[in-house]
């Protein structure tokens, strides 16, 4: 039997998200994110002209790109692609040169007060135990789904088959894996 490699991804249902920020708080607690920083965040785009307005609320984070510019630009190999295509930073290898931050099309990285660059890990430590990432686990509206794109029965695969979707800035060429359901 051939074993297909995992390709983790996340879908964000923009029709369900109410911007409650539970994902942001859950991430901060789960990953001990220092004060003043966040690994995921809420963006609210309002378009139109009053009273004809349309709002789109998105829970955003690192896109764990398939062709990640941060990994390509890292001079020490600290930024790397881990299991399931998850982009991680090895803290002990990071010199804090910030090339990855400048290279990231989504501005998803920041310098941790301890000096290394930090970002969303898709909660790999939880995923390895069979749990959902912290943000997905607490989402009260079912906006977030996480899973393996190479598994046709996963929540993300089903969402992408049955719904219209977009990614942020496809023109960056980074092939992001954070999909927004429309």
């Amino acid at each position: 039997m051939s074993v297909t490699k995992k390709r983790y991804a996340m879908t964000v249902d923009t029709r369900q998200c109410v911007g409650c920020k539970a994902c942001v708080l859950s991430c901060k607690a789960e990953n001990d994110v220092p004060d003043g920083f966040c690994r995921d965040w809420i963006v609210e785009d309002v378009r139109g002209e009053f009273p004809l307005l349309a709002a789109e609320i998105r829970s955003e984070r690192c896109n764990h790109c398939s062709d990640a510019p941060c990994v390509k630009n890292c001079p020490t190999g600290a930024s790397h692609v881990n299991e399931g295509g998850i982009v991680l930073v090895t803290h002990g290898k990071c010199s804090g040169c910030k090339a990855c931050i400048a290279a990231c099309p989504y501005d998803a990285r920041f310098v941790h007060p301890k000096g290394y660059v930090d970002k969303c890990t898709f909660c790999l430590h939880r995923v390895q135990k069979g749990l959902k990432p912290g943000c997905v686990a607490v989402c009260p509206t079912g906006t977030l789904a996480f899973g393996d794109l190479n598994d046709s029965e996963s929540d993300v695969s089903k969402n992408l088959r049955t719904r219209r979707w977009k990614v942020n800035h496809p023109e960056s060429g980074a092939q992001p894996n954070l999909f927004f359901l429309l």
Partner: protein
Amino acid sequence: MTPQFLETVTTRANAQIDPSLHVWGFEITIYLFLGGIVAGIFILAAALELVSGARPLSRFLRPVPFAALALLSVGMLALWLDLEHRLWAWRFYAVFRPTSPMSWGAWILWLVYPVGLAWGLGSLGSEERGVLRRWVPGVLRSAFEGILAFADKRRRSILVAAVLVGTSLGLYTGLLLGTMPSRLAWNSAVLGPLFLASGVSTGAATLLLLRLDDAERKTLVRWDAIAIGVELVLIVLLFLGWATSGEAGRFAAHSFLGGPYTAVFWSLVVVMGLLVPLAMEFLESRRHLRFVVIVPVLILAGGLALRWILLAAGQASSFRLLP
């Protein structure tokens, strides 16, 4: 009518990232500036000797390789100060990452020192060598003599290596910024050659501040004028590239054509840093006038402004600012 874009609200407020990226500050500007000068000095001073076939005529040109290495060390100190995890700086030399221009740069910097030392030692006259011999401890004397003999015997190869290493250094500083696809105002392959041409020009300006032999000075002024001409052409190409690359290019070009960097870019870089010195160099060669200090100072200030402005404009331009 297309719906008007009204506003974006984000809960993210990460330091150095929001509201606008600011991860690289004056340290990187200084490094890029000094790196460019050193690249220019390596290329020009070595080329001067390769072209004339004779050792440097003026006394001030002989220790130039050592002075260039000292300048580069100041630049590398600035680079190190910019690191957030300074004790991990050695990690650059634990691996070579071919897709990262910064990794290329780290190894190029490592190459500059031995080439510069061999070139500098070979440039010294017998009197200066005598002084150095007295300083070298006894146990290292035979090694020192070996290096001197090598530097003399392989003089031409070392000069060619200096030109190549200088070119790599000058190119990589621009390519480093040019390979960041997410920064719209850096996203151009022209930045590599542009920084190289600017490095040659600022290197020439630094050398012209020294008391040079007449023939050396004349050649350097001519080469500097060529470098400035090339720089102007590359700036035109940079804008043409942006003009032909859609929305992202339009946004990048707007930073310098009506946007926040318009006044500083055109006044400090193009007019005061390129056009005025080029006109003065033309006068110097045609009318036998001499602008000993003003031309090099203008060129150096223009080179510093070019790096400072491009560094800032690139960080201020991001995909998320596009509609």
